[in-house]
């Protein structure tokens, strides 16, 4: 269970503080899929990063399966993300110097409990097969289409079998067909792995696919 309580976030700049979030609370259970919508600059990505322990809230708490990642030190926090959270970004952010398979395997290199290389490779291959790229394992990101890159990014996010998958505008850079394919993929994988899925998007079409939707406006959730 992901529980975010009274999250607030404020950025300090040269010209004073800029509030981004103000008293946002959210609960997501296993198997839940949630979409968070809102206009550009409303703080959606900020909320996502807080939920994924990439950024610390100015106030409020976040727990995932009873653990508060912000009570951990940096190294433990990184390990927490590695084990419990998967990220998919709008710009796939694949490492251009690695093949699709190696991009998927990359997060396992810092696993706190190392796994045998063969089983990691097998799992990565399976994931890439699940996302429809069984025949593109050794291809570099430069040799893949936008949609294919995003599917590799999704497989990468799942290699550590996280409890929580966070997606920031996963279809934002894709054409309609690719976007639909990726959206379907996310839904299928979420069910298959029984993960908590939180997607940030400004696409109404994508958000409509999710049973729970929130609208972020004026730094707070309003009814979607």
């Amino acid at each position, binding site marked *: 269970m992901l529980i975010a309580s009274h999250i607030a976030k404020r*950025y*300090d*700049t*040269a*010209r004073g503080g*800029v509030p981004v979030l103000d008293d946002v609370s959210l609960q997501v259970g296993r198997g839940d899929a949630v979409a968070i919508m809102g206009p550009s600059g409303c703080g959606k990505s*900020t909320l996502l*990063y807080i939920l*994924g322990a*990439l*950024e610390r809230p100015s106030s409020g708490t976040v727990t995932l399966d009873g653990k508060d990642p912000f009570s951990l030190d*940096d*190294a433990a926090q*990184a*390990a*927490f*993300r*590695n*084990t419990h*959270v998967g*990220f998919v*970004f709008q*710009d796939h*952010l*694949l*490492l*251009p*110097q*690695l093949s699709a*398979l*190696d991009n998927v*395997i*990359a*997060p*396992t*290199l*810092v*696993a706190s409990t190392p796994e045998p*290389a063969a089983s*990691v*490779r097998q799992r990565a291959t399976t994931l890439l097969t699940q996302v429809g790229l069984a025949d593109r394992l050794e291809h570099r990101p430069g040799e893949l289409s936008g949609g294919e890159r995003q599917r590799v990014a999704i497989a*990468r996010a799942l290699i*550590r079998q996280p409890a929580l998958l966070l997606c920031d505008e996963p279809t934002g*850079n894709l054409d309609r067909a690719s976007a639909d394919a990726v959206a379907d993929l996310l839904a299928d994988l979420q069910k298959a792995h029984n993960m908590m899925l939180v997607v940030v998007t400004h696409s109404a079409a994508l958000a409509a696919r999710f049973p729970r939707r929130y609208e972020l406006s004026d730094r707070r959730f309003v009814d979607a």
Partner: protein
Amino acid sequence: MTFGRLAWAGLSHYRRTHLAVVLGVASAVAVLAGSLLVGSSVRASLSGLVTARLGQADLVVASENPFTESLAERLAEQPELQGRATVAPLFTLEGIATHQSSGRRAGNVSVYGVDERFFVFHGVEAEAPTGSGIWLSPDLATELGAVEQDAVVLRVARPTDIPLDSLHGRKDDTGRAIRLTVRGTLSRTQIGEFSLSPSQGPVRALFMALPRLQRDLGQAGRVNALLVSRGGQPLDADAVVNALDASISADDLGLKTEPVGGSLLVETASGLISDSLATTVSAIATRQGLERTEVLTWLANKLTVGDRTVPYSLVAGLGPAAGGDARLAELLRDTGTGAPPIVLNDWAARDLGVHVGSDLQLEYYRWADEGRLVVEQTTFQVAGVVPIEGLAADRRLSPAYPGITDAESVGEWDPPFPIDLKLVRQIDEDYWDKYRTTAKAFVPLEIAQELWRTRYGGISSMRLRTADCKLGTADCGPQTADLEASVPRALGSVRAGITVVDVRAQNVSASVGATDFGAYFSYFSFFLVVSALLLTALFFRLGIEQRLREIGVLRAAGFSVAAIQRLFLLEGVVVAIAGALVGVVLAIGWAALMMYGLRTWWVGAVGTTALALHVDPVTLVGGAVGGVVAALVCIWLTVRAVRKYSPRELLSGSTSGAFAAARTPGSIRRLMPTVILVTAVGLAAVTTTGAVPAAAGFFGAGALILIGGLMALGSHLRQPRAGVLGGSGVSALAGFGWRNASWRPGRSMTSAGLVAVAAFLLVSVDAFRKDTHAAGDARGGTGGFALIAESVLPFVHDPSTSSGREELGLQFQSNDPVFAGVSVFGARLRPGDDASCLNLYQPKQPRVLGVPDALIDAGRFTFAKSVADTDADRENPWRLLRGELADGVVPAIVDATSLQYVLHAAVGDIVTIDAETARPVRLRIVGSLSDSVLQGEIMIAESAFAQVFPESAGYRVMLVEVAAGARADEVATAIEERLEPYGADAQSALTKLEAYHRVENTYLSTFQTLGGLGLVLGTIGLAAVTARNVLERRRELALLSAAGYRLRDLSVMVVAENLGLVAIGLGVGVVAALVSIAPVLIARGGRPPALSMVWLLAVAAAGVVAALVATRAVRRLPLLASLRSE
């Protein structure tokens, strides 16, 4: 997929960026390792030079007093040497050679009297010189312009048994002129450059026939040096000393032992027994239960009682035993009341008409230490009269005096002091006929020693007697022989002044050098290395910034900061090692270039072209490791910076986004530059009042301006801009461009800071450039002396005195057009290694000057530092030379440059010179002279010199002051002509000082050249950084282009930013530097440092080039395509 593979994939994919890092590391390693290679090359060159010049000589046995030539064979037969080591005798001297037809002269010529054994010893194919034929070294032949069959006149000092500056020393015949014929030159492979002293300069060697030299010096069958070759076997100096002690004879040590009248007479060729010999003989006597009598005999000019006088009488001082003559011993017992006792023989008593109790005046000559003959007189009381029999008849109480002992009559006496033959009467001649050198009077030994003791000794002979038998008779044969043999054995070679030196080890040790060129070139290349490392760090950082989003996703995937740092460090290690491998190859090229520079552009610093590159793998590896470590530190510092980026910044790919943490300087930091600059102005103002020393005050003010200026720039770059853009045209565009310097304040500060610091150092180091123009006064670098003259042969007459100058033919009459107003200070010299910056070798036995009281009192030169703690000593620290220190330590004064850079010591330290000889000398440095012409000398008081270096008789150095307006060159010529028999060479003091300055200024120029290169490298490297900046800002530039900016407008902005940083850096650095060297600038009449300005112009040009490169980058941007998100 492993961590290593991930790192390797990054290396491969971003190889272009890494290539720039590799080049940066390679540059740093090349310069660092190359600089160290320069050091090892110089050391190897110097070592190679000295070992080549030594030939096969490993050890040298040498003595001031010649020993028998046959000692070579006796030594070679000793067990320690037999069958492995070889020994060759030679006679070695310093001389002056004159090419007869041209008159060209060469001083400091090493003269070697050799025979075929010398060449066999060295294993070279060369014929030994015979007769008057000589071989010359190539350098000497060139200097003299001498070819085969040319005549050369050689002048050398004649070794004498009797010390030159003693009463009986021949002062007017100190040298010999020998006419010789050149047979040709000996090449280096023919041992033509043989030299026992380490020096990088030309070798002036002259090889002549040993028998001929021995004959001309009156030293038949004697030599003063033996060369010993180990033959590849272990053999140290101690073993040679042991072998020497077992093989030396009394003749080698100048000892004479002879049974005389039942006693064993011990005396020396010099006529005086040294304290060490006296102690040795006394110890033998004590050990064997012998009775000993010390004798000191002197020539009295007059013995006078009332109006009666006996001229030129020998007077013997006898020890308490009085040679077994009980009556004489009793009569000579000094009661201590009244005048000391004197006993006359009956001849003298009759002639003087004395009776016991009469007062007797004894007049005598004494040679004073300051180099003049003095007449002194003492009153004795006649204690008794003895008949001329027994000991009183023993003419051997007097040593052999050349010019006296062998004369047939008193009228034929030819002593080295004036005698009035008119005083000699017929009865005196009759006495001489009958009794020769029999003493006419006897005094107690301690009285004789009070009157006539010299630094060479206070005993002229010793008598040993045994109660068992009469020594020298058949009954006492074995005992006599044992005793005769025991004296030289007990004295030993060391105490007798024969030294054994491991000359190969000593010279190789000296070749490590006083100057560590490796360290110096590392310092000189500091900016090159720093520039290379900064570029390394910059390019590595650029690589990281290029991969920020990649880092962000890894962070998101659970890579900790430490893991990411490890990943990049791993890449950095590989890059650094690759750079090091390339750098090692480049280092050899760099070192070769530096060595070429030392042989050509910077030859003024080393004074030789005999330096060559020696590639030492260990040095290369050391330099490479150092460069890699430095590069890794820079890379690590860069990688560490990853920590400060938040995941948001990383994922956005920008570290200057809207939500970037505020880095605006707080109010205190904003005020700091102002505070510092105001402090700088205040410090400068206070310094002008004299409250703060000028050098420190202005340098401090300059440094504060540098720091304050850079802080002001940093504050300006980080400050949010209050105003808005406005205006039009180039100035508005330039202003807009300048604002862009705030986009990456770190990069901008690095660029400007590097330029500022380098400019500051390049300009301010010019303050250390030495200038001779103000050195001419008494407190300046020359001490007010126009000339410094040095002779090959010593002269005993003190040139500081008018009588001494008269003796030398240097009368400085007031109406003499050349010498009017000339004054001279004479100094004694113990020759040795040059301790100035002109000598690349570490001096092991440095030159020592004994300075006279007159020079001490004159207070010339300026002191850099001293241990003076009284007002009088602070006013004139030379006075400290007169101080008495414990444990035989002698106070000394050295030039500050020599002290620090050659002797590696400081004021107050105790240094030991001649450490590897039998008589090391401990000196306490009581003061250092500031930038003086006496660099290269260690100066002690003349009185201390006489005690410590008794064998160095006479004067060899003159400091000459000429009147204002006089022609110093005419004085120099006159001195050389009049002192030609002594081989004098007079040099302008300013010229000599300029030679020292040339060395030091060459080092500065080298630093400025290499520093300037580094600055140029850094500035050019900024071109790549600027191009990178343009690439990163392509979207903004594209937007401006879409908004109507032309390419020309964009170029103006980029150029303004780049040139602005360079200009500010130069401006801050130069202003700060000029303030810091203000005192020097004022002293030089406001002339700016020329070489520095040249390099700063080069930097400015490089900045323009960098800006133009950046402009080109702008022109090549696909601006419209950049407007797209990917």
